[in-house]
């Protein structure tokens, strides 16, 4: 039983990172109706930005308590990646705004490859260790369960970011414009919304969350390389589809489900008779099942509009 709880917990930590990435997929889909396949690479860039920010500021960060240090690394990397996300949209997707979706989708795959191979050129192709900004200690008082400080930070950061995101989307003017634009871009422009600005903002927001995910992931699995974004990116994409693409709470829920399922399959591989190496396939089995049985996703609504 306690082993099960332990696995469940580990799955939730991993899943909360998938959730952060999935939110970006779903928000961009909401405003532009396309899947930004380069999103997983922004997650990778987040990890590397964290690495370099930490290196550059090492003398300063060393003098600070570690929670402040990780906060600074997170915030700076999120800001830098937000800017990168806005730049990607501006350079690669905006010129195709009025072209068929397929063109944009193929461009996204191209952007993804470009980032990965440029990453290889700039960062090198080998695995790089990610600095242990968070102390490697276990948190006690949880019965037989083992929870590391890193896992606590992952959970706290993910939850805080999701609450922040919910606030932005539901309570701010920009958030309302995002929702309006995703429902009807013609109508939102007739309300005076500059759709391009809202789309830039959405890319920035999604990229910042992916960057946070990248740093948290690198803190859990402290070895990073330019192709590290591919698998988590694909899984997060499945998470977004599972929750109902375009649906923000759905993306968060989908991320948690994928993380937990994957961890349980790996943890109980002997019982299930599935080699633990198949853990990465779980997400795609889930994808096939959703597409077969509930294409609109768990929380996805069929949008209705009376005419």
């Amino acid at each position, binding site marked *: 039983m306690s082993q099960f709880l332990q696995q469940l917990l580990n799955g939730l930590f991993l899943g909360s990172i998938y959730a952060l990435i999935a939110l970006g997929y779903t928000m961009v889909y909401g405003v532009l109706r396309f899947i930004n396949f380069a999103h997983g690479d922004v997650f990778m860039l987040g990890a590397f930005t964290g690495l370099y920010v930490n290196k550059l500021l090492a003398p300063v960060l060393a003098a600070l308590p570690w929670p402040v240090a990780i906060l600074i690394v997170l915030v700076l990397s999120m800001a830098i990646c937000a800017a990168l996300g806005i730049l990607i949209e501006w350079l690669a997707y905006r010129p195709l705004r009025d072209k068929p979706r397929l063109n944009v989708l193929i461009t996204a795959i191209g952007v993804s490859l470009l980032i990965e191979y440029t990453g290889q050129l700039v960062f090198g192709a080998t695995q790089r260790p990610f600095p242990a900004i968070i102390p490697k200690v276990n948190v006690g008082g949880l019965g037989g369960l083992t929870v590391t400080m890193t896992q606590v930070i992952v959970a706290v950061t993910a939850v805080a970011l999701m609450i922040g995101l919910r606030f932005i989307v539901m309570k701010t003017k920009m958030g*309302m414009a995002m929702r309006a634009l995703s429902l009807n871009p013609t109508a939102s*422009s*007739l*309300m005076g*919304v500059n759709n391009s600005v809202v789309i830039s903002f959405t890319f920035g927001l999604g990229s910042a969350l992916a960057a946070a995910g990248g740093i948290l992931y690198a803190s859990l699995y402290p070895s990073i390389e330019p192709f590290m974004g591919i698998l988590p990116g694909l899984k997060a994409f499945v998470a977004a589809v599972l929750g109902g693409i375009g649906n923000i709470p759905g993306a968060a829920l989908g991320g948690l489900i994928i993380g937990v399922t994957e961890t349980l399959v790996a943890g109980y591989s002997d019982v299930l008779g599935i080699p633990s190496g198949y853990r990465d396939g779980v997400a795609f089995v889930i994808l096939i099942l959703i597409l077969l049985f509930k294409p609109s996703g768990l929380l996805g609504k069929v949008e209705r*509009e009376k005419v």
Partner: protein
Amino acid sequence: MLEIENLEVSYGSIKALHGVSLKVPQGSIVTLIGANGAGKSTTLRAISGLIKARGGSVKYDGEDVTNLPAHKIVAKGLCHVPEGRMVFANLTVEENLRMGAYLRNDKAGIAEDMEFSFQMFPRLKERIHQAAGTMSGGEQQMLAIARSIMSKPRCLMLDEPSLGIAPMLVRSIFEQIVAINKERGITILLVEQNANLALAISQHGYVLETGKILLADSSEALRKNPQVREAYLGG
């Protein structure tokens, strides 16, 4: 207030407007009538910046606003209620009205105009927290009009507010359109297929046929015009 000259619009290689000219004087209600596919909606879309004009000009308040992006046109106080209403289906009535006031920051003024909207259409107040997409067509039309008022327009373009709505309700919506014009001094360009009603509440009318202005006259004269009577007023 609004002067359109020689407006030309094409969809791909198909020309939809062949040089449309019309004038909407300040404080008036002007109607644009015409059969299906005549180009009425196209005219409004070109004025409000939703589609590009190939030629001609749009002057608003003496300023050339031809081919400005839609969000900049609204900012100037020229507001378009599109055909098919286009309310934000998953947003509540209140959020839809707040979207109308997107460019405003005067909290008190926004609250006041929201109150005015509810006086105009009490039905909206009853449904303030309902998702707009779940309301009836008539209620959605009321919301679309109220939402446009929230942007504090000086000139309002309405595209077929009577479309698919029961005659009783149409009459009450038209009464509110007149009230908006009289009480708030908002100039109105009204596109309608229901020529009878439109000519009854307007001072001037234009008849559009396959992308060209066929007739332009006072509404009263148009109602008596045998050509109009036969084609648009049912004899």
